[in-house]
């Protein structure tokens, strides 16, 4: 169900390089894990709503204020900044 081609496609989508020598091991492990997933097919989930979070609470919102402290914390994770903008390598070559 998960062949070499699909694995390579998934790796591409995930932006991960898989060492050619490790492909076989990955495929073997995935085979076992996904095989285990098949257990879920035995469960009747007709009319069951998917559970999409850890707690089902009311929506929480706060005012959309500028939080300079938070922005500062976020920016600190970036290596380069120029004139108040975050600098990253070019997207187009």
């Amino acid at each position, binding site marked *: 169900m998960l062949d070499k081609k699909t694995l390579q496609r998934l790796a591409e989508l995930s932006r*991960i*390089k898989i060492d050619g020598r490790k492909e076989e091991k990955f495929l073997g492990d995935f085979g076992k894990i996904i095989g*285990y997933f098949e*257990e*879920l097919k035995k469960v009747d989930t007709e009319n069951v709503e*998917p559970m999409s979070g850890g707690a089902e609470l009311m929506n929480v919102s706060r005012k959309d204020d500028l939080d300079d402290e938070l922005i500062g*914390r976020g920016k600190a994770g970036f*290596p380069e900044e120029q004139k108040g903008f975050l600098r990253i390598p070019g997207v187009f070559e």
Partner: protein
Amino acid sequence: MTRLQDLTITDVRKGLLERKFSAFELAKYFFDYIAKRDKEIGAYLSLSKDEAFQQASKIDVHLAEGGELEPLAGVPIALKDNLLTEGEICTAGSKILENHISSYDASVVEKLRKQGAVILGKTNLDEFAMGSSTENSAFGPTKNPRDQERVPGGSSGGSAAAVADGLAVAALGSDTGGSIRQPAGFCGVVGLKPTYGRVSRFGLMAMASSLDQIGPIAKTVEDAEILFNAIKGKDKYDSTSFDIERESELKFEDLSGLTIGLPKEYFNPEIPGEIRDKGELEPEVKKAIEETVAALKTLKINFKEVSLPHTKYALPCYYIIMPAEVSTNLARFDGIRYGREKATDGRRQGLRDIYFDTRGKGFGEEAKRRIILGTFVLSSGYYDAYYKKAQKVRRLIKKDFENVFASGVDMLLAPTSPTLPFKLGERADDPISMYMADILTIPANLAGVPAISIPARKAGLPVGFQLIGKWNEEGRLLGLGKFYERVHETL
């Protein structure tokens, strides 16, 4: 004379008030002990001596001036290295973050500091908290202090080992599928996974956001309670966090009216053929749990066998939902933020090269496996068959808990892990057998209920039992835990 590394949080407070030692002396003692002992155990990844001594001195001055002591004043505490501390390296056990410096304190860290805690350093973990043995760290494994040929459990293995060996008085860990409770059980200490949302996750490196919770690892239930009370509560930076009106409690006179359910699926886990032996209850574990139940019966507590019929689907359900969230959460480690892998052949790197180089070299095998697995279950054509199906099964698992608690059962008791701590290397090459280690802890994360692991025996290799409670009833779990410790002490 008690050795200082055996002190509990309560002892530290008493010792400071009685001037038996200063906070500075205590911090110094712990760093000396770590320098001597941690070469063998490998619990810590980094130490923050300067900060710790500064904080300790502040407390000593405050105390000398006649000030009141905050609840955690002077208490040497360790943090799992996926919790951010401003200005210090936070690796999450991954090579990709080897040099990453946090730009702020996690909300729980901020709370600890305000309450006087002396943070000693950051502890080892499986990469991004993915694993059950702490062997999966890019910086080498941690050993179980009770038997150094064995794993301390994981992923908070460094925190559990540190507390078990007296390298810290208490610690924080994080629990996504058992990562606080399982290592606590393996190392013979107490570990609490709170109800989802009771502790802010802001500043915890996210693994699976709908499952992660931060919680205490401590030597006693009382210490776990003190630490939990110190970190809980609503935080504006985590919209899933909340306050509750009043903490639940359990008084001695409540014990005779208490009903504890023994879920039969946890004592005889149903596992498909070829991997069955890795998830079955070992006889020694079973015996220790039976003795725990017998000890609790002396408190006139009622026990009742109960059933949570969807338990056997929890593990496959978890291994769909968790990797799906991992694949999205770990997308942020792209080489643009948080450190970059430089090309070794001197070529100029475009954005694409940076992504592939950084992620290819920076992530370990388990992280890659989970990212790819998550990408798979979320991809078009498989989403309904796997991810959506798992979300539905998750609801049924939660419903099992609702039903059992509605039937007059106050809490559940079960082993924390099906096995004793296993040997280093024993499961490292086989992911599924490693996943089996969490078979009894995962359901609580999927349902969001609180659960605590408490040592079931003192002699031999550690065995933990867990109490699983109703949503927001940490107070009752901790309450019963404290009564158990008293009974256990006299046995």
